[in-house]
């Protein structure tokens, strides 16, 4: 690809950008693969990839996953790299992410920061200047997976890893690094949501609560019998988000009532408060209105 073919980034003078989403971690505290956690109609990995692509350009995102790791469906222009980076600290994922065939700086994040914003990514690229790294820093902590790296730091990272010097600050001490502080970050992300990783169920719930209102879903006939409950509460802004969250919370509903990706199975209907039936996953849910999930086969 010639330089002119490289998609231009938003902001920062149009210099080429790229992004990487790391999803091969162990998800130990969550107890399940975080890449698959539903979040507003998409899975965490899908969401992270979408947000990053919004900031660096379509076709400019790679996902770094474990060999054999099953991933949710991703847009066709995303490249998936397989590398086992478990137990190698945050730097581990950078090696495959900073591919040598592209000299554009790379924003690197993990899939478990669902509240990341494109504005934060823009800010880090703008701060990079001639440095090798621009990294977010708040309350005295650096966030190596909310940072932009130039690919030329890759050999150094590889040698640090060989020497088991796994702490990112060792890298920042050795290469020109811009630390983007709290004041600058808060200007684009007042609550520093972008730095919240969902490492456990509580953090996940808090992230959902920050992003979406609570939605009550009333279950009828075999949906109720299979889920073992008459009612479920999820966080979502859209019908698709609510049903995906429900499919995740009540796996027994898949595939008879819901599809694995949170669609309605054939013969199933969703009604907003019993007033009207909807099937558009993107339909925005009005406040305080329950969703009724019922079979279209109503004949007696």
């Amino acid at each position, binding site marked *: 690809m010639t330089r002119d073919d490289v998609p231009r980034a938003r902001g920062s003078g149009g210099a080429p950008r790229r992004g990487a989403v790391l999803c091969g971690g162990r998800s130990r505290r969550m107890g399940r693969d975080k890449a698959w956690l539903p979040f507003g109609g998409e899975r965490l990995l899908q969401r992270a990839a979408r947000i990053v692509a919004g900031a660096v350009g379509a076709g400019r995102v790679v996902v770094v996953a474990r060999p054999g790791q099953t991933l949710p469906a991703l847009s066709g222009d995303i490249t998936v790299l397989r590398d086992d980076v478990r137990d190698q600290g945050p730097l581990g994922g950078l090696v495959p992410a900073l591919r040598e065939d592209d000299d554009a700086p790379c924003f690197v994040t993990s899939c478990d920061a669902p509240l990341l914003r494109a504005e934060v990514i823009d800010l880090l690229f703008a701060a990079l200047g001639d440095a090798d790294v621009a990294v977010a820093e708040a309350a005295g902590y650096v966030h190596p997976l909310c940072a932009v790296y130039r690919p030329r730091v890759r050999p150094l990272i590889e040698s640090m890893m060989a020497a088991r010097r796994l702490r990112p600050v060792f890298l920042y001490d050795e290469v020109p690094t811009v630390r983007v502080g709290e004041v600058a970050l808060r200007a684009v992300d007042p609550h520093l949501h972008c730095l919240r990783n969902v490492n456990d169920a509580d953090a996940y719930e808090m992230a959902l609560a920050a992003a979406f209102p609570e939605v009550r879903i009333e279950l009828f006939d075999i949906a*109720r019998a299979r889920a073992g409950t008459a009612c479920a509460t999820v966080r979502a802004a859209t019908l698709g988000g609510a049903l995906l969250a429900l499919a995740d919370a009540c796996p027994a509903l898949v595939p*008879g009532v819901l599809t694995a990706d949170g669609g309605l199975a054939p013969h199933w*209907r969703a009604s907003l408060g019993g*007033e009207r039936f*909807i*099937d558009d996953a993107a339909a925005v849910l009005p406040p305080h209105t329950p969703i009724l999930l*019922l079979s279209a086969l109503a004949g007696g």
Partner: protein
Amino acid sequence: MTTQHGGHHGRYLHVDLSTGSSRHVAIPRDVARRLIGGVGIGAWLLGRHAPPGVAPLDAAAPFVVALSPLVGTPLTTSAKFAVVAKSPLTDRIGDALASDRFAVLLKGCGVDALVVTGAAADWSLLIVDEDGARLEPAADLALLSAQAAEERVRERRGDHWRFFGIGPAGERLVHFATVSGDSRHAGRGGLGAVLGSKRIKGIAVHGTRRTPLHDSERVVALARALSERSLGPGTAKYRELGTVTNLLVMNRLNALPTRNFTSGSFEDAEAISGEALHALPSVRKHCASCTIGCEHVFETGSGTRVRMEYESLFALGPLCGIADRDAILKAAALCDDLGLDVISAGGTIAFAMECRERGLLAGHEDFATVPGFGDAEGLLRMLADIAARRGAGAALAEGSRRLARRLGGEAPGLAPHVKGLELPGYEPRAMQTMALGLAVSARGADHNRSGAYEADLRPGADRFTADADKGPAAAASEVRAAVLDSLILCKFLRGALDDVLAEGAAMLAAVTGFDMTRDELEEAGRRIVALRKLFNAREGWTAAEDTLPARILAEPLAGAGTGARTNEPGIGVTLSAEGLTRMIASYYAAHGWTDRGEIPAGLVEALLLTDLAPCSEDPR
């Protein structure tokens, strides 16, 4: 292996009980092709044999059992038959379906239908086998339930015989008596009274003649694929919970008729719901030749086993204000034993209950025993009184329309019927496409000859508004139902069919050898809808009959918690007479009928109905 023709014997058996004679009459192959079978052929035979204006319980009125080309094939749910007669409730066409090996054995007698006219001198059993028909005395079966009579007949004649007959209500000509076999009922329209009026306790059949199949290998392949699909998600609801699970859905949609249509939801719905029933021990049963098995039989505390469906649950529960699950089970069992249609029984009693509460029974001493809403003991008593035509039961045994006429005043506007047939469990104001389907159906308020409720549950549909665009949806659903009811396949199979018409045409083609296409089958559905309508027109139907109870068109929809609970949809919604008229006009137009709902001569011709239309003279 293929044979040229299949699926039909090409003849029906006409039994004249008054003379004791019977004869085979040909059914031309092109008639079978045009009307398929079931309600299609049944409507034709009714029109051929019923003298114009005949009283439904007159000896001259025919009682028709019509089979279909699929009967006897391995296609799932195909062991069904249609019972067709002029309904004593509506004075219009009455048709009802039932499932049983009775269908297979009757076809084994070498006929595609049975027409019974006249009346026996004494209570008799009509025996039909490959040699024809004859009568046997049935005094020993008097006042037995249909099930007990069936057991007696099979003990006597052998277990390979099948029986289809009436209980005490049919014998006493209750206008909503059922005809039953193997605990399945041809429920609606009082066809049991028609058989009773002929002093026939039941029909016992046995025949082993096979009907050839045009392409047996293809039929077997289709049957295999269909059976497989019948066990998939499209029928899971019926298999796992049965239709009783509809109660909470209807309640939540504010579409559950409650206390004679004074509310669309019932405050005690959870206590009597399908889910509450499933807390009891239950077993699942199948009709003959059915892989689905939607029938859930619940065991009561006393060990009685009761078959329960949504319609019995709603009609004997919320419609009468009954919140006692066990009492509803008892009432349903009683209806089965007595041979009463649960919908009309519940509807008529609920209507009487409201009349009592409004003081409309004051001064009618014989109505002193009519219970009030919620009186479970009173409900059970009243069911027994209806079947015995005892006290107030004698008047209620004629259905809500006749009862209302007798009471006069505001009562007729409160009676929950269309054309005399009591409304099923769909609140018309909360499901306005269904309201249209109920208003225009040829057999009266009916949920089986029209599946218009499905249109109300579609994304984007406005179920609370009487849009003119509801006409085509109601008409199309009626055509599909006419096809299913003529094939005959169970409606609960439709979730497993991608395209009822295309797949139905393929089955028919394989069974009969007709080069049937989807379009031709759809046309046949239209023809059958029109034929039923032509029968009604001959019997005096006018567009004024295509309506809903006055209260539905005058009162806004209420809910169980109006004023207190706020999450009930549709509170205050109305369905005006103008709105209904608008929908009916669009429905007539969708069928190509005139704005007065008549079928133009040109359409009769175009539908190839000219020679099939009901006779205009007494056929005797």
